[in-house]
């Protein structure tokens, strides 16, 4: 027999546990889930990975034409294409991760009903899959940066920028994971999520400074709402650190941003864990 004996005890659902340890035991499954999602996604499309680059590139072009050329909005020291592209990349990461994660439990219902594993693997892998797209599209971002350093001799602080990108990514992914996980748990019981989601995403798009800069907002209470948005913080952090012009690494951070992130995370985890045990019965 084996060296040690795994003892599993099955009891009525415990009140609450985070299950980090168990999640760690299933890390390979998490890898395979993500790997499978990525494979499947790129196999079905003829242009495959090109779409990941084409979509933000075309949106960026539209933004530059409409906002910079058309409306004459300036973007400070940062060239307009770079300015809008990073907003779009962060937004796309968030949008895809939330949408994907919130549908993930339902779309994997057949697996949930047949095999046990920590259910959190599913929304986490959805978020990681979207991260893959983000990392691929960073190629575009860095390519554009290199183009501008050569052609227009813009001084870029590569280390500061990369570090701020990493932090911006973590904040975005964490927020997307919380929101997506929360919605995925609700979606198991109430399919209304399907109808609420597009509206929610659109609303969030307007309070995220993808097309504009927070500094142009005059109304104080609207500004406060924007500042509570973790994505606003992520995007501003990266935009601030693209050029060498500012010495400040962090943007003016509202004390509430970390609280918003943590609160969202706690709500999501508690909701998910509380309903998780019965997913197979109701999905």
């Amino acid at each position: 027999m084996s060296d040690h004996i795994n003892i599993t005890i099955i009891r009525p659902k415990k009140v609450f546990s985070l299950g980090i340890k168990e999640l760690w035991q299933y890390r390979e499954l998490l890898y395979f889930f993500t790997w499978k999602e990525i494979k499947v996604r790129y196999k079905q499309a003829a242009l495959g990975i090109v779409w990941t680059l084409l979509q933000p590139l075309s949106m960026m072009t539209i933004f530059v034409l409409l906002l910079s050329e058309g409306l004459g909005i300036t973007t400070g020291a940062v060239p307009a294409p770079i300015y809008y592209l990073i907003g779009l990349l962060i937004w796309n990461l968030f949008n895809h991760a939330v949408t994907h994660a919130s549908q993930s439990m339902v779309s994997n219902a057949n697996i949930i009903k047949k095999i046990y594993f920590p259910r959190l693997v599913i929304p986490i892998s959805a978020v990681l899959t979207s991260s893959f797209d983000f990392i691929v599209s960073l190629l575009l971002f860095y390519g554009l940066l290199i183009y501008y350093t050569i052609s227009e001799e813009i001084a870029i602080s590569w280390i500061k920028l990369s570090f701020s990108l990493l932090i911006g990514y973590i904040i975005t992914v964490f927020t997307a994971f919380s929101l997506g996980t929360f919605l995925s748990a609700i979606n198991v019981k109430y399919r209304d999520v399907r109808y609420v989601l597009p509206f929610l995403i659109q609303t969030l798009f307007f309070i995220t400074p993808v097309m504009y800069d927070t500094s142009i907002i005059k109304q104080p209470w609207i500004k406060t709402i924007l500042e509570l948005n973790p994505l606003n913080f992520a995007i501003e952090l990266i935009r601030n650190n693209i050029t060498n012009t500012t010495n400040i690494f962090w943007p003016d951070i509202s004390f509430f941003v970390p609280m918003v992130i943590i609160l969202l995370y706690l709500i999501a985890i508690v909701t998910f864990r509380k309903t998780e045990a019965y997913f197979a019965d109701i999905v």
Partner: protein
Amino acid sequence: MFCLSKIYNTQFLNNLKPIIEVNHVWKEYQKGIDRRYKSLRDTLVGMPNRLLGTEKEKFWALEDIDFKVEAGESVGIIGRNGAGKSTLLKILSRITPPTKGEIILRGRVASLLEVGTGFHPELTGRENVFFNGSILGMKHAEIKHKFDEIVDFSGVESFIDTPLKHYSSGMQMRLAFSVAAHLDSEILLIDEVLAVGDAEFQKKCIGKMDDVSKGDGKSILFVSHDVNAISNLSQRGIILDLGLKIFESNIIDALNKYVEITSHNRNISLNNSPRIGNGIVRISQICISSISNETSSFLKPFDDVNFSIEFAYNKESNLREIKLDLGINNLAGKRVTWMTAKKFFNDEFNQSRKIEFIVEKFPLVPGEYTINLHCEVNNQIADWIKNVGEFKILNNKYFDTNLRIPQGQGDVQLQYTVK
């Protein structure tokens, strides 16, 4: 030395303990649409009911299931649709938690509620083997190590890098089975998955799983209503019906019992029973059935019960009046109740040749009972049969309290209210 003996000891102790221990497991479900997902509207509409506490109609899908499986033993769980087999397997697989009770599994568990879970048509055979293996709990290195063996076993080598959507369904099945057959675990939980796929390959899989079981002292828990598959794989059988464990023994006795209970509702032919009487009229058959619970061959407390007795006789005889007594004895031989009926041999009776006793809310306590039938025609004993038609009232929840009547608390149960 010390270390060695210590390891030996713990292993020895662990080997003594059963590998699966199911301790008084209950599972409750809600009746009706509630088991499926609902829209927010349904919840809002249901709100007033829920606040008044009237909405939830629940039922026990499993009641007090209790059994053990020793290491290396194969146990078959038999029961018809709705008996609770799948629910039990789902709980053992940790897909859904029990409502009460606990299960202890001492070993690595591989659960096959389905083969090919997570197979994706766009992925190649190779990719699907990796994903499916991983989902079934194999480590990456383990799949890599066994990959060639799995592919060999499946016999689809030449297509292994072709997307699964180009496979025939038979090929998909073979690949799925191969992954499953190579799972390395101490405990194997198998649902009725073996009912599919081609016969030849099925045999191969059963053989492989049998090797697994006999070779390494692994335990298999097998759920099916397929009597053949069960008898091939299991040494011991457990019969479930209506969420209760009603029988447990070696596989042969269990299968016989299963065949007996599934072949019609307690229809007992009495043509060969020892009897006394002049035989003008003979009781040919007695059928005991529950009116409230037609699917079951067992009676639950307070079921409405129908005792139907059929007669065989020659119509030409000079028959006037028939009197039938039906006595019910408990297993100790004590008469617990008695019913009687009197009928004339009129056209209606000659047509049906049957007397039915219908008892509403049958009040006997759970246990096994036998029946005495005493039939008089024209005031003479025509047919008298003792101790036939053994029937059983399940030890079920009492008055929906989910409690049971303790042993030795009399012969009848009352319908009462407490104020």
